[in-house]
């Protein structure tokens, strides 16, 4: 079980390179997505391992709110705003 946990965390660690290196904003946002889904998996395993059923609620919460940050991003920095010119477009 711990091994599963470690490997899941390792997959996040791989994603870390993308989030720091980029190069585009999309890559970074994707990594948040990855962190979200691997985080949910880790929480499920942890809840089994530590015998804390409440962690399932945490996982559900993260799962439900996974689309919240992208939705806010689209609303606040989406197309009709002129002032997002330089955001995340360093190739």
């Amino acid at each position, binding site marked *: 079980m711990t091994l599963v946990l470690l490997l899941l965390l390792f997959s996040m660690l791989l994603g870390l390179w993308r*989030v720091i290196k980029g190069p585009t*904003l999309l890559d970074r946002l994707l990594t948040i997505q990855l962190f979200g889904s691997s985080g949910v998996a*880790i929480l499920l395993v*942890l*809840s089994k391992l530590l015998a804390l059923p409440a962690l399932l609620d945490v996982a*559900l919460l993260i799962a439900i709110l996974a689309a919240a940050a992208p939705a806010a991003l689209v*609303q606040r*920095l989406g197309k009709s705003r002129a002032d997002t010119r330089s955001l995340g477009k360093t190739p």
Partner: protein
Amino acid sequence: MGLLLFDVVLCALLLTLAGAAMLSRQLVHAVTLFIAFGVMMALAWARLQAPDLALAEAAIGAGLTGALCFTALARYAGDAGYPKPKLWLPLVFVAAVSALLLYSVFQIPAQPTTELSERVAEHLAVSGVSHPVTAVLLNFRAWDTLLELLVLLLALLGARQVPSQLPLHAGWSLSVSWSRLLSPMLLLLSAYLLWRGAAAPGGAFQAGALLASGLVILRLNQQLAWLSWQNFAVRTLVLAGLIAFVMAGLASLLLPGQLVWLSWPVALAGGIILLVETFATLAIALTLALLVVGEPEQEPADA
């Protein structure tokens, strides 16, 4: 052993994310990294057996921080052309301070002080709830919680003094329908968290923060036009948590034999706590939502 390795990797991830957020070239990257950092913090709380905090952190980190930061980011018109800051002087100083702090935390004895926990366990039976964290928050240290609700209210009052309108444009149909699909689920889940708070991890703040995230998502998709301070019902609910708390305190002070502020009579404690928590949840949800998305239309600052 395996768990220790897990801890090492988790801590390394946390530190890297925080460091990258502080040092990244562009602000939008800093914000993205910070959101990822929030998710990882929730994992750390889960690992450290603090499910209450993991719930709260997940609701805040995943739902509210993103909306807050992206709203602030929309204000930065491109890159404002800040001079490249010096790194070395701060780095040296901060490294010295960190070394000092590191040395200090290693002085912390590994032997826990258990007297306070024992006292909590002793009195749990007469606190009205069976989950110790809720008992501390709503009974043993209820005064802290009342003041904390006041801090939240003050943030809203302060933010209302400095309104700055960002127009809401029409949401994409996909996110609108997703938010509609989500809202009943969020409502149910927060009601469940609130109810569970009496016996298990959960409670007013977690439920409120979750509900607030739901309100924010809906509001950002141009729904809930009623969500405004000008609306008397909204205003009442924003204040309801504090009003219920203060009234409960004063009422129980009037009861015969109750001589001290915020001491709930044992027989009524469970009911009072549930009542206060329910109003506090609504208040927290609406306050946070108003704080994050602001007012729908431009109004003068003073009502």
